[in-house]
């Protein structure tokens, strides 16, 4: 009995130490790949508007605010929901490399970097200052680009 309790305690400590739990298996992999792509497209749509503002091609400061809000909203989705196990390349038209799950802590970290960067973008959008928005956009973009560089394979 005592051994069991100790084992259980040890297991609990291990989990706590891992700091993050690996994502669960996808219930419906095909649908979840689609869902992820929809979320990503939302991020892309947001960044497109921000880029348009920075390049002075039409979008207004209000558009940037809306885009920042959309990016912030997506960034609060649990990464385990965005990237369930079993949705790597080979499932539907997934472009997610298997390395994403092999290096889960890194991948999850990138995802979590989105929120603070998006909040800065919101602040910059409020100022309406193009240089400040450009800087915040670069910071958000760095997160997108780094994760894509490591974990996405364009097909």
């Amino acid at each position, binding site marked *: 009995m005592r051994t069991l309790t100790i084992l259980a305690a040890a297991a609990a400590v291990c989990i706590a130490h891992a700091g993050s739990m690996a994502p669960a298996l996808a219930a419906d992999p095909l649908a979840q790949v689609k869902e992820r792509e929809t979320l990503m497209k939302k991020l892309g749509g947001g960044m497109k508007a921000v880029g348009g503002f920075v390049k002075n091609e039409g979008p207004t400061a209000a558009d940037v605010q809306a885009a920042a809000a959309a990016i912030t909203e997506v960034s609060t989705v649990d990464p385990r929901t965005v990237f369930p196990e079993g949705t790597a390349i080979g499932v539907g038209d997934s472009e997610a490399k298997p390395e994403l799950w092999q290096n889960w802590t*890194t991948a999850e970290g*990138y995802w979590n*970097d989105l929120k603070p*960067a998006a909040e800065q973008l919101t602040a910059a959008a409020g100022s309406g200052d193009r240089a400040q928005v*450009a800087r915040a956009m*670069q910071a958000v973009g760095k997160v997108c680009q780094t*994760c894509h560089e490591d974990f996405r394979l364009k097909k």
Partner: protein
Amino acid sequence: MRAAAPAAARATVRAAVRATLAGAVIAVAGAMALPAAGQDPPAADPSSDDPVARGAYVFAAAGCLGCHTDVKGGGTLLAGGRALETPFGTFHSPNITPHPQHGIGAWSEADFVRAFRDGRRPDGDALFPAFPYGSYTGMTERDLLDLRAYLFSLPAADTPNRPHDLDPPFGWRFLLPVWQWLYLERGPLADDPSQPPEWNRGRYLVDVLGHCGECHTPRSRLGGLDRDAHMAGNRAGPEGEAVPNISPNPERGIGAWSIGDIELFLEIGMMPDGDFAGGSMGEVITNSTSKLTAEDRRAIAVYLKSLPPQP
């Protein structure tokens, strides 16, 4: 690819994000140029009086880092050992630190220039074109000597070289002179006097230093670049990646991208639709194009827009 250097990669992003958020220097020229993300010491500077600083810039523009460092395996800077998968087999890049036995520390200036200009080792052996000297042959003498000065300023690593795993007949080094005879157009690349300096600079950055065609131009069965299909894309790029057409074809290429779209892409990886480049292009952006001056990124854009559209 940097996939498995989690801690380091992450620390870099974090630092870059913090630096940009803190609002480092910014030169908003035409509301566009963004501050360059962290550069390695010594600061790369194309207009410096110091050959080492100029060489650092050539090194970035030519994208030497990724191929000669086993980032995935946590390898030492430029000590080689990165596995490069190609249709001809797997290459293991050599150590190019100034180590006298394991690196290139014993190479004279003439030896160094010859490797790039003629694809030859000091002992006369031909080099495999997996080292893209088919592009680098066009480099100026000055850029080559600056590059050597920079490499020789870095720490030496005693990592031994690993032999390549190639399929015959591609593994036969003695056949390489035939390849060179067929495909090597020996440089340096002369400026085209009928074109403005910006275009010539762009061509030098794209076709010589950036060796963009090594991925974006399809290859013949012998591994030579198909120059009639310049930048037409390559379905079977390095590591099995599909490489897009970047000629100004409006549907299949980047004809619909503005100069500003291309500049922003080369700086932060963002495409006009808000998507971000990944894979090996992400690496090119991180190690190379994001470190260029805004003028150089513009020159690249101007040159790409001037190319004949490819189907």
